[in-house]
Structures are given as structure tokens and as C-alpha cells.
């Protein structure tokens, strides 16, 4: 019986995911190209400069790192609304005078630990407390913002003298590119590898796609879920370091509404909110679209109202551009 016209030797090359890994991003790339063309036409002098491209990447770096963690969580069938608040809390904690007295290294460590810790609490509540992710992380959002406000007494905390090494991530450039862009790239690369080349990544797809099947196949779904949120928190910690470097401060107001931006980037990137599908590359492309839109607005000096209207329309167009793709993939 031959139900398939293809020869038995089909399906060569590439990995398990390679086969449906490429076409799906065409729509996103098309949207990016379109935006770039708009940039070249409307602000020819300022758009295609190195400094502007670097600026775009620097702007994208903070949410970008968060988006990587968010991609894992969403592929794993969850959602993390607390990312912005956790980043804020980590930045505040890392810039308290007490922490700062130990120097820049401890500050970074503190940010990462606080982020991971908050993520772990999310994970525990969701995996072992059986709370709905939306609610658990919403509670964390609210509580982390409150804690950050309390800890900072609602003030912006400057990075003190002696700890300029943190700020140097933003000001030091290698080959004309600030260090924090390299960190962003590193996080994306590591995220991609973990998702595509390790058992952890493969299990993430299983846990998100069909948790019952994953459980019966011997995966410790709860533990894995918990780790996913911890990973997201870890990314928030890294993002906190980047935002500290960029703003030279820790503040309870950092990262406001980042959760919506990150989730939007992930979804525009083709990851399903129901879990089990998605790619890091897609998320980053989605994020770059958003950043590019902002950049174009900045360069063109549009007023806020028009920006918002245009942004809404662009999102719709970008998604409709990749609709055919989506349609094919979604059953």
C-alpha cells in the first residue's frame, strides 16, 4: 500500500524540525523588508546608517532577551505576564545601596538570582500549586511591582560610582556594536540551541503540545513546567542587567507592559498560544518588526495617536501576510 507518492527514501537531510522550519517565516521576513523599504523611502539619510541599525538592536535587546524566555514558556503551553515586573524587581534589587557595595559582579548575579527566583515561584505555583499560568503570573506581576516600589521607595536608583562596569555594557563598543547587543545575540543563540538541539527543548514541545501524552511517556511534566518559568525568570534577570546598563538605573517602573510586547512578538512569530509549536527565530523576527516600527516612527516624528493607529494596522497587515502560512500549519 502506497498512500504517499514520495519514494520511500524521502525526508532526507535536516533535522526533525527542519522540514517545516523555513517557509513559515517568509511572511515575517516580507514584513521586515517592507518596513525597511518604508524606512529607506521616508528617511533615506537616517535609516540605513550603522548607528541607526545598532540603535535598533540596542533597543530590541532588553525585550529580546525576555522574548526568548517567553518563547519557551509559551511553547510549553503556558504564559508569563510577570516578565516586565520581574525585570523591574531584579533591577531594583541589584541597585540597592547594599547590593551595590559588593561591586558590579554581585549586582549582575543578584539580578539573575532575583529573576530566577521569581520565575521559580511562578513555576511552583503553576506546576505544583496547579494555578492557571495567567493568574499566577498576573499575581506575580502585581506583587513584584509592589515589592520593587517598596524596596526602592518609589525612587529611581542610580548606579553608583565604582560600578560603572555595568553601564559599560551599553557604552563600550566592539566593532562599533555595544556589548549588550552581543549579550542579546548570545542569549538568542543559546536559546535556539537549547530549544532545538537538547532533550530539554524537545520535551518543551511535548509538554506544551500534549501534557498528558508527555506525562505518560515518562516526562516529569510538573518539574519541566517549573523549570520553564524559572528559565523565563532567568531571562528577566539578564534583561534587568541590560536595562540597568542602558538607563544607568534600577527602577520599579522599568519594563512596563513588556509582557504584552513580548507575547505579541512571540505570537506574531508563529508560536501558538496553545503550546506545542513555535520557534525562537520567529519570535525574534516578530520583535524586530515591532522595534523597526518604533524606530521608523521615531525617525519620522509621527505623533503618538497616529503612531498607535498605524501600529495597529501594521500588526494586522503583518499577520495577514503570514496568514496563508499559518493556515497551512494550523489544522
Amino acid at each position, binding site marked *: 500500500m502506497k498512500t504517499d507518492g514520495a519514494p520511500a527514501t524521502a525526508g532526507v537531510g535536516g533535522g526533525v524540525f527542519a522540514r517545516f522550519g523555513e517557509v513559515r517565516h517568509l511572511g515575517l521576513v516580507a514584513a521586515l523588508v517592507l518596513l525597511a523599504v518604508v524606512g529607506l523611502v521616508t528617511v533615506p539619510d537616517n535609516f540605513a546608517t550603522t548607528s541607526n541599525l545598532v*540603535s535598533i538592536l540596542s533597543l530590541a535587546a532588553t525585550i529580546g532577551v525576555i522574548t526568548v524566555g517567553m518563547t519557551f514558556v509559551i511553547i510549553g503551553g503556558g504564559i508569563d505576564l510577570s516578565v516586565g515586573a520581574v525585570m523591574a524587581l531584579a533591577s531594583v534589587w541589584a541597585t540597592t545601596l547594599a547590593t551595590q557595595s559588593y561591586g558590579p559582579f554581585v549586582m549582575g548575579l543578584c539580578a539573575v538570582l532575583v529573576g530566577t527566583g521569581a520565575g521559580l515561584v511562578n513555576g511552583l505555583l503553576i506546576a505544583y500549586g496547579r494555578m492557571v499560568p495567567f493568574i499566577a503570573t498576573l499575581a506575580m506581576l502585581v506583587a513584584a511591582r509592589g515589592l520593587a516600589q517598596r524596596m526602592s521607595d*518609589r525612587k529611581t536608583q542610580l548606579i553608583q560610582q565604582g560600578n560603572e562596569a555595568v*553601564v559599560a555594557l551599553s*557604552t563600550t563598543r566592539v566593532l562599533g556594536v555595544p556589548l549588550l547587543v552581543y549579550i542579546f545575540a548570545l542569549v538568542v543563540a543559546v536559546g535556539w540551541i537549547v530549544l532545538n538541539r537538547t532533550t530539554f527543548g524537545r520535551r518543551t514541545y511535548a509538554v506544551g503540545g500534549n501534557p498528558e501524552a508527555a506525562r505518560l511517556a515518562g516526562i516529569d511534566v510538573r518539574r519541566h513546567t517549573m523549570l520553564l518559568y524559572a528559565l523565563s525568570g532567568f531571562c528577566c534577570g539578564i534583561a534587568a542587567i541590560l536595562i540597568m546598563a542602558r538607563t544607568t538605573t534600577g527602577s520599579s517602573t522599568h519594563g512596563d507592559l513588556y509582557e504584552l510586547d513580548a507575547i505579541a512578538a512571540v505570537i506574531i512569530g508563529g508560536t501558538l498560544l496553545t503550546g506545542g509549536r513555535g520557534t525562537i527565530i520567529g519570535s525574534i523576527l516578530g520583535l524586530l518588526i515591532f522595534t523597526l516600527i*518604533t524606530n521608523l516612527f*521615531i525617525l519620522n516624528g509621527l505623533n*503618538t495617536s497616529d503612531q498607535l493607529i498605524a501600529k495597529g494596522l501594521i500588526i494586522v497587515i503583518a499577520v495577514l501576510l503570514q496568514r496563508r502560512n499559518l493556515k497551512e500549519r494550523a489544522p
Partner: protein
Amino acid sequence: TSNQPAAQPSAQSAAPAPAPAAGGNDQPGTKVVIGFSAPAADHGWIAAIAKNAEAAAKQYSDVEFKAVEPTNDINAQISAVESLIAAKVNALVILPNDGQQLNQIALQATAAGIPVVNLDRVFPDKLAYRTWIGGDNYGMGVAAGHYVGKKLKDKGVTNPVIVEIQGIATLPLTQDRTKGFADALKTYGFSVTAKQDAQFTVETGNKVAANLLQAHKKIDAMWNHDDDQGVGVLAAIKEAGRNEFFMVGGAGSANAMREIQSGDSVLEATVTYSPTMASSAIKLARLIAQGKGMSDLVENQVPQSITLASETITKENVQKYLPLGFES
């Protein structure tokens, strides 16, 4: 909707025509490009700031005005200023979302040889800007505190219930206002009974006020930091049918002034915080870029800092201010 307070011409007519400068400073000089960056104009006061700045720039044939995307995300505002530095403008007018967080980028601008005029929210590092111009938030609180304190003292109230509705709590300006209010009240031996923060919007003002009115059955005085959220506060007061207390606003919006003028509202006074400072900031930036001084002063250069005064508007003087009030 007004964000922060200000007495400013009717919003319908966009910005007020800045008064001509004396001493020939308005004569066209070297051509200058002035970059402008401010938070997103989702509230009236900031919207007025943006409009005033643009209108002031339009007055001069020698000024090219380059405004970048207003935004509430620090990260994006940094990016916006970066793009202005890259465009090599002659002077920058920056109203930062948060002075401390944009300090670094302002320093970079200064280092790149671009003079920065810091508008309103102040950079902590004096190296970061050439001139600061802004309102007096502490003074606003003091003005409100004096009005409330004096009035209660005159009435002979002891242990008054004084309620304060703040704006966005994480802004330093809110903290300054609150401190000024408390300090002024202290001179009368009074203190604030309860305070809650709103978000500078009508709706949040309404919500906070509705709950506060439940918490305090009898109130003697109320200070609301912002006349725009004040619209919501007044609606809540009306809904609850309360009138045993008086209220002081903050901003100087036209609405608030009309309420004050009517005489039958709990709103008796408001203290100003004017968005006209944006027009002044543009003028200063132009002068600095052209190397001129302020012609009314003896100095050859523009001063390092200029603080506006906060005025108290009551039924007595409202007539005079009403034309300047902005529709929030």
C-alpha cells in the same frame, strides 16, 4: 486630559503665541536645528508641552524643529535621543520620562557637543545639561498647603481630616509635591490624614476618590494634585453627595477654573504648573545654540537654571487666569 497642572491658553487654539523677546533676540540669526523629545502625549499637560514647543519653534525662521517619537518607555526614549544625536542637531530640548534614567544619554549628547536644555524633570548630573527650566513641584505643594492650612486655621478647626490625592506615585515630581504639601501644613500644626495615588486620569481619580470618600465620613479639606484627574474626583464627590469640605486642585485647567468661578463647587482653588515652559525651553535652546544671552538680563549667556513660580488661583483672581487655563 491634563497630566500635570498648568495654566495655559485654551487648548483649542493649540499653543499660546510666545511673547516677543526684547532687545532684538527674535531677529533671525544663524540657522539652528533643535531636537525635541518628551514622553508620550497621552495626557493633556504633556500634549500641551509638545504643542507649545512646536508653536514656539515655528515662530522663528532660523529654527528647524525636529521632534522625535514621544514615548513612555525609557528604553525607546533613549533610542529616540540617540537618533537625534546621530542627526547632529544644534541643541536638544529634553523632557525625560525620568531624569535619572536619561541622564546617561544626556551626558552623551553634551559630550558630543550638543547643548541640552532640560525641561521640567531634572537630570541629577549637572554635567548632563546646559540649562534647566521647569516648574516648582515642591512649591506647588507648599502653595496648596498654605491655602488649606490657612483656611482651616481661620475656621478654627482642630485635628482636621485632610485628604490628598496624588498623581503617579513613582514620579519624583509627585513625591516633591507631597513633601511641599506636608511641610507647609506642618507650619500650621496639621498633617495629612490619608493619601492615595491615582494615574493622572479621570477614571483613576474617580475610583480613588470614591473609595476615599467611603473611608472618611467627614473630611475637612482635600488636595488633588492634578485638575484632570480632578474631573473624576469631582464627579465622585457629586455622586456621593458630599460638600462638607473644600478642595484644592493642581494644574490650572480651564475646567477647574470654571468650577472655582461658579462658587458653588467644593473646588475652591488650584495651584498652577504651566506647560508654557516648553515654549521658553525652545527659545532658550535657540539662544544657546546661537550663542546669545537673555536680553532682559545683564549676562551674556543664558542662565543655568530657571524655576517657574506656582501661583494660587482662587475665586478672587480666577478672572485673570481664566484665559490662560487649558482645556484638560
